[in-house]
């Protein structure tokens, strides 16, 4: 035995009293107990399974929101259109100091919201004459002209607080017809299938659907109603009354701090909260792994004698 080993009594072979311990029996009993407990919980409480939202449901129950979102996709003002990597180059993405990995890795899942969410789906189906003509006009126009038309309608909708009945007239070009055409297509259920297949037979990538769905307020409203918003501990909540990912409490905690949850649109920490909090959690995770080497933290168990409860029989026997 080396001198170092000898100096650490906790590393030495135990030479005190022993007790019988049937480790195999313990394991088998544990498996049976956990299996029975799981079956009981499953039988008594079931599990959450709220149906997935659809574009059909969105365009049917929140028609104005779907229409306005479609216009924002054409105008390039939606969240997806301005997201940046890995979807497009509209911005550099989030950063912390000199760390800009979002920008460094670039566009790996290209998404062009105007084309992918609106124009291509409309082109994939036979459209009413008005929509077909609007498509032709749109495609024949310059990019500048397209932006002017779509931005004018986007601004008008914003001015009317999303109430389409209050949108005045303007030089919107074919945009209203395109937006109405896509709304009708979505309400019929056709858009769900078109976005899913995207011209292919096999498809398992739902990036475009998720981004489009998130650009409107339909998904957001549903999440708010289900208490799933990040600033209300939603990260660790579950739909219904079921337990969620309680193990994410610390990750969720940071999002509750005003520093990461400010209403100031220019607040650096709030704007880059996703990056900053990820790095904080990464550092804390490394700290967890290396805890035996961190002074003070590793001494806490000595200072707060919970171990006296755990080994109370042993310490009692030492006193007698």
């Amino acid at each position, binding site marked *: 035995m080396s001198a170092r080993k000898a100096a650490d009594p906790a590393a030495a072979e135990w030479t005190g009293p022993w007790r019988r311990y049937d480790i195999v029996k313990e394991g088998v009993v544990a498996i049976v107990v956990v299996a029975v407990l*799981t079956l009981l919980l499953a039988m008594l409480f079931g599990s959450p399974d*709220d149906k997935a939202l659809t574009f059909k449901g969105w365009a049917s129950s929140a028609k104005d929101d779907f229409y306005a979102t479609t216009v924002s996709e054409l105008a390039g003002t939606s969240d997806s259109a301005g997201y940046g990597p890995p979807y497009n180059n509209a911005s550099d993405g*989030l950063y912390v100091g000199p760390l800009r990995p979002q920008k460094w*890795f670039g566009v790996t899942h290209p998404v062009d919201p105007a084309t992918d969410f609106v124009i291509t789906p409309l082109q994939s189906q036979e459209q009413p004459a008005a929509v077909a003509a609007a498509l032709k006009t749109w495609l024949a126009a310059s990019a500048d002209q397209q932006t002017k038309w779509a931005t004018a309608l986007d601004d008008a909708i914003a001015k009317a607080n999303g109430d389409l009945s209050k949108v005045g007239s303007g030089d919107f070009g074919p945009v209203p017809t395109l937006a109405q055409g896509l709304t009708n297509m979505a309400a019929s259920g056709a858009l769900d299938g078109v976005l899913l297949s995207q011209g292919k037979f096999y498809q398992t990538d739902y990036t475009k659907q998720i981004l489009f769905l998130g650009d409107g307020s339909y998904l957001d409203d549903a999440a708010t109603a289900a208490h799933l918003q990040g600033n209300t501990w939603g990260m660790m909540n579950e739909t219904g009354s079921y337990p969620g990912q309680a193990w994410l409490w610390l990750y969720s905690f940071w999002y509750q701090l005003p520093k990461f949850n400010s209403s100031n649109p220019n607040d650096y920490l709030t704007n880059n909260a996703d990056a900053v909090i990820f790095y904080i959690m990464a550092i804390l995770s490394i700290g967890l792994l290396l805890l035996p080497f961190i002074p003070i933290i590793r001494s806490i168990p000595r200072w707060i004698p919970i*171990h006296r409860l755990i080994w109370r029989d042993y310490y009692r026997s030492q006193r007698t």
Partner: protein
Amino acid sequence: MTATLPATGAPETPEGGPESRMWTARLRRAWVSKLPPDKLLPDRQPAYVASWIYVFGVLTIAAFLVVLASGLVLAFTGPAWYHTSSLGHFTNSTHFWSVQLFFVFMVIHLWGKFWMAAWRGRRWLTWLTGGLCFLASLATAFTGYLIQTNFDSQWISFEAKDGLNAVGIGAFFNVANLGQTLLIHACLLPLVVGVITVWHVLLVRRRGVVPPMEAVPPHGAVPVAVPAAVATSGEPTVTSEESGS
């Protein structure tokens, strides 16, 4: 060149002979010297191993096995089966609750080991593998939530993409790619958690259960083999005196 071996039996590899330098023989020697059978599968533990907190490690492994079993059924039937089948929903419920139990047991186990300062006595690698197992389990659960193919997974993938994209992970791992996430959840991560768990358990077996803080072995005690008293009489507790010290 082929050596002639006895036709029957399994003779010991002669020490110092050419066979003793075989990789297989070396691996066996190294394994047995570090983890002899009585350490690998012990039938006794130090007397201080007498608290309910010790149960949570094995409960975590038991829950992991139930998670694997229910997940295996779901893997065979695909991610959408449980939406339309009552048996599927029940199977999904067992998967859901076994995951909840797994984390409850694991977190209690982790806290227990923290308050025991269980990294003492050159057991830091045991602690580290336990921590790694916890982090790998978080990733496994996260991908599981992403492949529910329901409203919850829509929302989680929409929200989670921002954090992963912000640090560059999103360039390689796309939370909205069901195919990618499903494969990672069902094939890769359970393997990672399983391998780390085995590593962790082997380390526990090799180093033994950490003794109480300030534990002082009886004066004059020496390392002992399995006491005859345990093997023959079956007495639950054997003192160091009885074990020959």
